[in-house]
């Protein structure tokens, strides 16, 4: 393998470029119109345009990406996560074009990509699934019929896209009255995200934790599971904080969950990196939820506690190498790692997306800190893609140590010019329940929905004073940037005019 084309953008494209460079493999990036100056383009050895900014016209264009790989003379394609990473047609198109797809076979993607088919695989492999519909409910199935089926499962229940992932096309339904609205929203979101509006129903486990098991599987029959990741901290079904290991998974539970995960993967002849997601009930029983047939966003925490470079192993497996890792070491976490997904969203304004130009950026550094980012000072966060700009990961000798380092790293992190979820994580890190690892998947939505809640993470008087002093000094001493010293007051008049026009 001499050259890898990375069929993705943002932080994950940068992550894959780094792995390739570590291995002495050349890299080719692809980019849409608005991503011409994105970090992954700047980092790659070469870059190929694949179309306009809308994902459908660029990063989701199988023909354009395979064409770019051919023109680049790449011999392999890494899909990252999202976009085409779990698209069996893309994996097949790569294979047909003589390119190595760094991921599982198109057949495994197809099988596990259907959430209902994946449930059947798990059942056959002897792994328990959450009770629910075993057949997909196509868009042609009427509301009345879905209501009928739902009453058989009972409320509350979860409505999920058959082609789903990343929380899209997923809704919690508390009662029959909410079902039609939730069904409409889930189908529409699933249709636009995955091109398939089919959904299925699952009984809702009341206080579950979301625990997942990373796997690597080679082409020689070896499947190796890794120590679990705890991913219960979610907002609107999107993971926002992950950690490894989980504080509630005992050594014996770890053995059972990881071997269940491995048996699901073996049942489909799975190869490359994948993740089995489980719901863990309060009584310690766990249920297969789904399999993600790709590298996960949160893979760095596993790398931090095992020392394994998962992306390098994806490439080595794709080259046909045998897994030579020690299975016991992969199940023995070295201390603790936490990840916060930093989004360009304003937590004090209903988490509305906050795209725009990053005027200034200071990235945390120092012991135990890793920042996987696609952002840079002066760069733009475009409106077209997922608003995640960085994954901040800290490692510590204990969970408390990792949390202390995360607080320190979040305080060092400055992203100026757009609003980010950094204050949201600072608030979570001060929460007594989070600190005690007392939570389930409803933790964030419950805390955010608390009645009479004020600002998420209020600014204290001391910080208000310091900010006031700093702002006054800044105005008093601000350098005039263009030419002659324009009096400060004229800028205020300009500002007043702008205000009057609003």
């Amino acid at each position, binding site marked *: 393998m001499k050259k890898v084309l990375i069929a993705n953008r943002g932080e994950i494209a940068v992550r894959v470029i780094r792995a390739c460079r570590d291995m002495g493999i050349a890299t080719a990036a692809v980019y849409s119109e608005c991503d011409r100056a994105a970090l992954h383009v700047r980092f790659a050895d070469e870059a190929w345009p694949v179309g306009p900014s809308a994902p459908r016209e660029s990063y989701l264009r199988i023909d354009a990406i395979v064409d770019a790989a051919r023109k680049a003379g790449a011999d392999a394609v890494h899909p990252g996560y999202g976009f085409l990473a779990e698209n069996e047609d893309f994996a097949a198109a790569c294979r047909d074009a003589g390119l190595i797809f760094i991921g599982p076979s198109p057949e495994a993607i197809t099988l596990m990509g259907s959430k209902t088919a994946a449930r059947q695989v798990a059942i056959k492999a002897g792994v328990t699934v959450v009770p629910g519909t075993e057949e997909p409910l196509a868009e042609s199935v009427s509301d009345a019929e879905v209501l009928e089926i739902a009453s058989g499962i009972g409320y509350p229940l979860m409505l999920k896209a058959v082609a789903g992932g990343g929380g899209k096309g997923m809704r919690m339904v508390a009662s029959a009255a909410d079902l039609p609205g939730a069904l409409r929203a889930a189908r529409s979101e699933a249709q636009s995200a995955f091109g398939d509006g089919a959904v299925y129903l699952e009984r809702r486990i009341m206080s579950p934790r979301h625990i997942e098991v990373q796997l690597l599987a080679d082409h020689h029959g070896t499947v190796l599971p890794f120590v679990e990741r705890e991913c219960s901290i979610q907002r609107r079904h999107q993971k926002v904080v992950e950690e490894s290991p989980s504080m509630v998974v005992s050594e014996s539970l770890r053995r059972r969950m990881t071997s269940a995960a491995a048996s699901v993967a073996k049942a489909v002849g799975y190869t490359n990196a994948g993740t089995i997601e489980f719901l863990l009930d309060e009584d310690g029983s766990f249920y297969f939820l789904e399999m993600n047939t790709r590298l996960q966003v949160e893979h760095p925490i596993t790398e931090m506690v095992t020392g394994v470079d998962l992306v390098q192993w994806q490439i080595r497996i794709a080259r046909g190498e045998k897994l030579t890792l020690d299975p016991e070491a992969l199940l023995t976490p070295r201390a603790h790692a936490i990840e916060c997904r930093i989004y360009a969203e304003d937590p004090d304004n209903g988490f509305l997306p906050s795209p725009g130009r990053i005027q200034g950026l200071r990235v945390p550094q120092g012991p135990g800190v890793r920042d996987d980012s696609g952002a840079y000072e002066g760069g733009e966060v475009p409106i077209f893609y997922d*608003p995640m700009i960085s994954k901040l990961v800290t490692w510590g000798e204990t969970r408390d140590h990792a949390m202390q380092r995360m607080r320190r790293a979040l305080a060092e992190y400055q992203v100026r010019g757009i609003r980010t979820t950094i204050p949201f994580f600072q608030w979570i890190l001060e929460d007594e329940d989070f600190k005690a690892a007392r939570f389930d998947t409803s933790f964030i939505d419950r805390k955010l929905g608390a009645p009479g809640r004020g600002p998420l993470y209020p600014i204290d008087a001391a910080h208000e004073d310091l900010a006031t002093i700093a702002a006054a000094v800044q105005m008093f001493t601000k350098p005039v940037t263009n030419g002659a010293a324009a009096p400060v007051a004229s800028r205020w008049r300009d500002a007043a005019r702008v205000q009057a026009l609003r």
Partner: protein
Amino acid sequence: MNFEVEIGERVRAVGVVRKGTMLHVTIDGTTHIVDARRVGESALSLLVHADGAAQARSVDASFAQMPGGDLDVHVDGRVVSLQIRPAGSFGRQKKAGPGGSGSGPQRVVAPMPGKVVRVLVKPGDEVKARQGLVVVEAMKMENELKAARDGRVRDVSVREGQSVDAGAVLLVVE
């Protein structure tokens, strides 16, 4: 030089005078003696002595002018959004925040650039507070914009499928 600084609802008067190499910053009658060094176009290192104290607090501050008019001050690991203006320069500014819950018509505006995926109401509809009015898709997520209070839909100025800029008025509830 005197400024007014507004944080949330609170407005404070701030005076800055240069005395030798130091700046004297007075807030609400308390004077802070500040040694300020510029470390970037939008960044300052400040050593702040509280009223005559020998001990100085080291404050690393940086700034971003936000599109809505706020100045975001990054200080000590926190972000404080404020408005600052020379004292008395153009009177009290009223923040024209979208979708306030006061009286008068509610103009529902697009909070960010995106695409209108669904309009859930039509002119003349009676709506309840928190009822969904329009769904705007941006950055792969669908965001439902809700009524701030009970009222009647007056104008609907967008249609499904239309792209909208941040701040565009989508509809009005009165």
